[in-house]
């Protein structure tokens, strides 16, 4: 019976089904959804700011729940003393250690939108250095305020401004100003010490094989400059590939790694001494290898600690008057914990 019913009716049946589906589909269209209650609650107080990538962000009146999508942003939130407002961060946010215990939304590159929404954030912080635009787009379309900071191509001063702006957004303006002022003071004092010295020529190794270093416009390059060092490579690309030949030709004074927890300058040096070509470099022969911890090379307050450490390693004679400092280049320096007031707990690192 069914056969006879369908005979001759198959094509119209298919067409009808297709039409029904196509009418049902718009129901599932995400773009129907604009800002949810959060941002529209007190319409008069809602303000619009422009983030670092030019996106217009409608800020809610009160920011009580924050989700961060990158480790440096998490670090900044803690440094500003706002950890109670931090509703969630990513799997890889590990500085400070307490951040690991917060609810996670996945990896920075591809976080779970649903997990983010489930945390009901008033503000989501993202950065261009590690997040993808489509995440911010999707969240914006769902009506969630997303503020994206520029990551890789900032100067240290711009980073400080960014921290101040973020603090302002999250309702912690005074703390932000104070934190930034303190960090600035440390940088200025460093600058004063190093003012008369020539810049050390260094090779900053992002990745060993293939050999990748940093470009001029990255914040790492700027941070290096604050520490009295200049990359031997002047490239407008952010992460230029380099051949070992070039390194041999340019003979940097120091080689800088940003390794993980379990690597020390000593072990790095030992490895390099075993490698052909590397071991013949002047810097390796002289033992001029510096290891900065990976967590500190981020656009976050901890960067200033790294800059100070770098300056000590590369210009030891500028700090010779600080007799109490033990500053051999071979010592493993753990990432100094960040206190609530933005100062570090490493007393030997100077003010």
């Amino acid at each position, binding site marked *: 019976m069914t056969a006879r019913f*369908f005979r001759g009716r198959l094509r119209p049946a298919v067409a009808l089904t297709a039409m029904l589906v196509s009418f049902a589909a*718009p129901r599932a269209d995400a773009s129907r959804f604009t800002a949810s209650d959060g941002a529209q609650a007190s319409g008069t107080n809602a303000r619009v700011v422009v983030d670092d990538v030019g996106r217009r962000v409608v800020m809610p009146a009160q920011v009580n729940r924050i989700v961060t999508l990158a480790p440096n942003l998490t670090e900044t939130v803690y440094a500003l003393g706002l950890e109670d407002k931090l509703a969630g961060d990513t799997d890889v946010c590990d500085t400070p250690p307490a951040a690991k215990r917060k609810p996670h939304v996945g990896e920075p590159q591809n976080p779970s939108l649903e997990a983010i929404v489930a945390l009901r954030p008033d503000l989501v912080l993202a950065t261009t250095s590690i997040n993808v635009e489509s995440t911010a787009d999707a969240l914006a379309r769902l009506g969630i305020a997303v503020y994206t900071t520029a990551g890789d191509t900032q100067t240290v001063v711009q980073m400080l401004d960014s921290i101040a702006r973020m603090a302002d957004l999250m309702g912690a303006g005074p703390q932000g100003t104070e934190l930034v002022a303190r960090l600035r003071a440390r940088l200025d004092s460093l600058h004063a010490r190093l003012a008369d010295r020539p810049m050390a020529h260094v090779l900053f190794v992002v990745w060993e094989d293939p050999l990748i270093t940093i470009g001029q416009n990255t914040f790492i390059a700027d941070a290096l400059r604050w520490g009295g060092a200049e990359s031997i490579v002047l490239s407008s690309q952010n992460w230029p590939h380099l051949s070992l030949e070039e390194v041999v030709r340019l003979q940097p004074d120091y080689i800088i790694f940003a390794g993980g927890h379990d690597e020390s300058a000593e072990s790095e040096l030992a490895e390099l001494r075993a490698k052909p070509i590397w071991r013949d470099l002047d810097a390796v022969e002289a033992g001029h290898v510096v290891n900065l911890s990976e967590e500190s090379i981020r656009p976050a307050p901890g960067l200033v600690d790294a800059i100070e450490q770098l300056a000590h390693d590369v210009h030891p004679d500028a700090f010779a008057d600080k007799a109490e400092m033990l500053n051999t280049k071979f010592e493993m320096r753990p990432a100094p914990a960040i206190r609530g007031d933005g100062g570090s707990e490493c007393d030997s690192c100077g003010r």
Partner: protein
Amino acid sequence: MRPLTPGRVGAICLGLGLVLFAAVVVSLRMGAYPIAISDIVTSLVQGALGRWNNIPTESRLVIFGLRLPRIALGVLVGASLATSGAGFQALLRNPLADPYVLGVSSGAALGAIVSLIAAPHAPALIQVAAFAGALATIAVVYFLGRRGGQLDSATLLLAGIITASFLSAVIMFLMTTLSGRDLRGMAFWLMGDLQAPSTVSAKWLYIVMGIAVGSIYSTASDLNLILTGENEARHLGVNVERVKLVVYVGASLLTGLAVSVSGAIGYVGLLVPHLMRMLFGSDYRLLIPTSAISGAILIVVADTLARTVVAPTELPVGAMTALAGAPVFIYLMRRRVR
């Protein structure tokens, strides 16, 4: 002798449709944000009636803003890829053919990369650019794949493979010029991702898919004959050249559609038609609709797994399709009694 009847086609498709429906319901239920089934049903009903205000905000956001669009895209992509795979397997007379063998996905990826480089702050453009890249590749491979003015299976396959390799090389070169952020985005795009919402309304995508699938289905009887030999088919009255053109354009369009929406998700186009052949036979009048529906089922299941297995980490959908599809395939292969 029990020939295929429209009734049988309808019954099997209905059965598969029910499985798809079940998969969709389960998928709606699962996710980081807990919502009870009763709430899902009420929300769906309220939404269908247009009473958006009656639905709690989070439910509305999660169900209609996140899960349902993602599932809808998944159904679209799955159906498109599976149908395209079945079509190419007939067109190229090769059981190993999949939707990407003729280079359409490489063309779409190239379009996406060019859009990223030329207009980095207009991510909405990526989808359109990818589709444009796909269309361009379709045209190029068509002209390269002709022999004596007509599409020739062997020449087409060769043309497609060469084009795909060439485009991949260009893409690799361009990727070295991308900044870190765009590079990451591009890598994820290439791997296949259903989380990013479509910039073009789903309605248009479904319409295009419907037209393409419909066109291919209209040649189903012809394809059955062509698969016993092109000359034989010609002598039975099949306009072989026309059929090949329709299938080529239709299947390539479906691939371009799927890839521009979600990147290149693998295995669906290859596995699903073979699965359907094992279960229901090689008759294309049944193979095409069953492949479409089953492709949708596979993607919905795979995507649900991808976003829940190691929540909140999102696994790549393409890996999940292989993991979900391959064991079923192997099981059926071993059970097959002839």
